């Protein structure tokens, strides 16, 4: 066990692709946390989806024993943070368990907007931020320019920024020394009564709830009784220890340390993230500040294709929210899709990942409807309502004014791509608020309707800047706008789950693009399928999926049925991925057609 002076708790702030996970892997390797044969690449990204997409979604931690050049052994607790703009909430959670953060910047690409935002969060929380220049092995590395950028854009001293290459292993030990030297040890009285913060909780099918905690004061031991502050419920520690990154029981966690606690909590809401653990003998110890709840920015309905799966779906959502407090859900009923949930997400990536996790980890077949932001509607009777679902928009006659959310967007872009980025911002109905030239980069501030930002702005921004522009955004205000609900009618019947809210200027274009895309996605059926887009009663676009003339195997020799059987079984399996709306079979993908429209 380490005394406080020999503990360092840190996070890594980095933009996607700037090499955070690779650097973490190097640290683990250097400290001998895993034998090299166990080093699956990027060991901390443990969810399949994280590995596949090369991004971090959930906070993870690892405890490393580092023998420094002064001969002393330090306990390094590294708490991983997600790097995508959608997950900034997770970042502040991870940072609250640390005394310092490494700001990893690609020495070729320079500072990115997301890192700027996260650095500010770290500085606000009183963390020591240490700049690390990564990818020094690449020919385009320009450390002096990037140091200058760090100082100009973020405003921290970068003169002794540590040059490394996580890929080749260059400077890894220097970085560890730098970390031990600069990041302050944690404070906390080990003799005082227990006070520990839940950084993360997740559900394990064998163990029940597993929580990642940071002990602020006192000691928590195996078989100790503790109370969860918010629920007031008492639990006994079954297992306690650290991640190396394998789970290793240590029997106790002391003030300053980070590790896991398992206490036989079966109720998935039993150990909420941000809650405080105190000793059962010292109930008067106050709760720690916890985390600010973030408001979801994007809402979509999720339904099971088979109504038999509804209960499983509800359980799965409950389990997911345990360690993803930013996921919001409430029951929703759709005429077309039946019972499901309206879910709120931090952004589109978050939405995709949740759907993927539900389908993969819980084996559900789901339909997600077109995502929407939250609108404010002032009714003629003076009532102000918030609408997160196009189908629950009040009657047009009752609406005095519709207001859309505006996002304040901070964009960092190399000068070469400035023109492209400005064009994109204008196309997305953006209003420029500020523009500053900082070194080789330009810092742009735009107010852009949230609906445009969450849809595909980030991807478009990346493509018009060859990946160099970066984005951070947050909700700014509601603003009056000319908006309408674009309904989609299938064979004359309005399908509630297909409605979207659009700006008046885009009605024609969106209506046409949406119906064209749906025509591609809906397979031919026994009758013509008319797809119409309409505002109020007025049809603005129409497409027809022509009927199949027939679907019958012409020749069938009764003798050998095997091939025909396979054909019919395949047809049946394909049908399971369809939703019957009225008489029309609509594939899952058509409900998200709005996202697949080429812009």
């Amino acid at each position, binding site marked *: 066990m380490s005394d406080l002076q020999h503990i360092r708790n840190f996070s890594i702030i980095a933009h996607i692709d700037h090499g955070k996970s690779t650097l973490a892997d190097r640290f683990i390797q250097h400290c001998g946390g895993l034998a090299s044969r166990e080093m699956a690449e990027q060991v901390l990204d443990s969810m399949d989806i994280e590995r596949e997409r090369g991004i971090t979604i959930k906070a993870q931690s690892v405890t490393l024993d580092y023998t420094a050049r002064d001969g002393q052994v330090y306990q390094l607790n590294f708490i991983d943070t997600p790097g995508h703009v959608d997950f900034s909430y997770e970042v502040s959670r991870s940072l609250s368990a640390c005394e310092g953060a490494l700001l990893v910047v690609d020495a070729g690409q320079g500072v990115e907007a997301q890192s700027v935002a996260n650095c500010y969060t770290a500085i606000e929380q009183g963390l020591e931020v240490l700049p690390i220049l990564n990818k020094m092995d690449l020919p385009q590395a320009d450390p002096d320019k990037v140091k200058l950028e760090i100082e100009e854009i973020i405003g921290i001293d970068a003169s002794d920024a540590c040059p490394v290459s996580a890929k080749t292993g260059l400077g890894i030990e220097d970085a560890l020394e730098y970390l031990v030297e600069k990041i302050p040890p944690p404070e906390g009285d080990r003799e005082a009564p227990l006070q520990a913060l839940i950084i993360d909780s997740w559900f394990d099918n064998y163990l029940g709830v597993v929580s990642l905690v940071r002990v602020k004061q006192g000691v928590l031991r195996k078989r100790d009784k503790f109370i969860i502050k918010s629920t007031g419920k008492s639990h006994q520690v079954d297992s306690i220890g650290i991640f190396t990154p394998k789970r290793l029981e240590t029997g106790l966690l002391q003030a300053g340390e980070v590790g896991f606690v398992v206490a036989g909590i079966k109720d998935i809401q039993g150990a909420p993230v941000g809650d405080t653990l105190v000793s059962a003998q010292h109930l008067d110890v106050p709760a720690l500040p916890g985390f600010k709840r973030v408001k979801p920015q994007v809402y979509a309905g999720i339904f099971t294709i088979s109504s038999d799966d509804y209960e499983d779906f509800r359980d799965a959502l409950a389990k997911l929210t345990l360690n993803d407090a930013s996921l919001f859900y409430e029951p929703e009923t759709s005429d077309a899709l039946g019972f499901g949930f309206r879910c709120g997400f931090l952004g589109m990536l978050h939405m995709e990942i949740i759907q993927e996790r539900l389908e993969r980890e819980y084996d559900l077949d789901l339909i997600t409807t077109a995502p929407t932001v939250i609108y404010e509607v002032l009714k003629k009777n003076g009532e102000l309502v918030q609408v997160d679902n196009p189908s629950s928009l009040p009657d047009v006659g009752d609406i005095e004014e519709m207001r859309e959310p505006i996002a304040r967007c901070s964009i960092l872009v190399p000068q070469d791509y400035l023109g492209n980025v400005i064009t994109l911002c204008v196309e997305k109905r953006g209003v420029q608020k500020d523009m500053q030239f900082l070194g080789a980069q330009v810092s742009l501030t735009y107010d852009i309707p949230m609906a445009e930002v969450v849809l595909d702005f980030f991807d478009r921004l990346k493509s018009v800047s060859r990946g160099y522009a970066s984005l951070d955004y947050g909700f700014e205000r509601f603003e009056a706008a000319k908006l309408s609900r674009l309904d989609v009618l299938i064979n004359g019947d309005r399908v509630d789950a297909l409605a979207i809210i659009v700006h008046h200027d885009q009605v024609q274009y969106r209506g046409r693009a949406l119906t064209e895309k749906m025509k591609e996605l809906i397979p031919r059926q026994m009758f013509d399928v008319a797809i119409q887009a309409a505002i109020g009663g007025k049809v603005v676009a129409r497409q027809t999926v022509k009927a199949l003339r027939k679907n019958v*195997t012409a020749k069938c020799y*009764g003798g050998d049925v095997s091939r*025909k059987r396979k054909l019919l*079984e395949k*047809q049946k399996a394909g049908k399971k991925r369809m939703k019957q709306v009225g008489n029309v079979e609509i594939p899952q993908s058509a409900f998200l057609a709005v996202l697949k429209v080429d812009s």
Partner: protein
Amino acid sequence: MLTELPPLGLYIHLPWCERKCPYCDFNSHEAQVIPEQAYIQALLQDLDGELARAQGRQLSSLFIGGGTPSLFSAAAIATLMAGISARLPLAKHFEATMEANPGSAEADKFAGFRAAGINRLSLGVQSFNDAQLQALGRVHSAAQAHAAIAMAGRAGFDNLNIDLMHGLPGQQSERGLDDIRSALSYQPTHLSWYQLTIEPNTLFHKRPPTLPVEDTLAAIQEGGEDILVAAGLSAYEVSAWSLPGRECRHNLNYWSFGDYLAIGAGAHGKITWPDGRIERYAKRKQPKEYMQAQAGAFTGSQRWLSAEDLPGEYMMNALRLAEGTELQAFTQRTGLSLETIEAPLAALSQRGLIEIVDGKLRCSAVGWRFLDTVVAEFF
């Protein structure tokens, strides 16, 4: 438990062809010389092993398919037929069909086949247009086809089927209808009239020909139906047309989920046992392996149908028939109660794809055109 075993047919596969057609996905093999004697011996030895499956039933029909069965000599067919009737009792109105290619060499044997006991001939004409026949890779000409039909009549085949395909590469709708008119000029008792479909594992699948567009296919289909109906034929099955009373009994037995023994390379059989179990099996596919097989080793694969298999298997056959099926027959032939198919029946009749009248189930006119959609509901 089944109260009564279904009627029994016998399928015999003769696997050789002069040339394999590019659309054909049956178990057929090109050969210049056919080991006739050895193959007939193998067939009869195979049949010895099948006798237990007959369970004392008499044969109501047999069907010799291929390949090109008419490549065999009349003497070989006579040996085969004699061997069969020596082993199994034949029903009173026994139907014995043989497939024949309308080439001149084959036509000369028709009388011999008739004398051997074959009483129904199925001629693989496919088209009366030389260009189309060539595109299909057929070895015969239009003139040979005409001659073969005439020869079949002279040989005493009053029960004659003409196989015709439509939707052929580059076919215009008038050409497709001309083929039907040509066939009808012979007043055939039976027509198998079906659209060319490209099957996997065929030459056409690898190098697809240009097929007519959907509108042309529909024009041929609808125009052809009108002509056939006017000629007094009716479609008793999706692709099978006949004069009243001249339906192919062997095929009807397939479609009504009857039983059939199978002998010959790659032949498929289906047998119901008194305890209610139903088996499907197939003989070894390669002619060489088949002929070398010892007694009892002819079978290549065998499986028992499960309760989940049965509704789909029954319906994919029974609903091909215009008159459909008695619901009671479903229970009789599968041993399952009607409750097992209650849900799909309700859904399909609500969509207007099937009709249930007086205990009889059949497809509606629309349902018949979308038969695969209908049948998929039972899987």
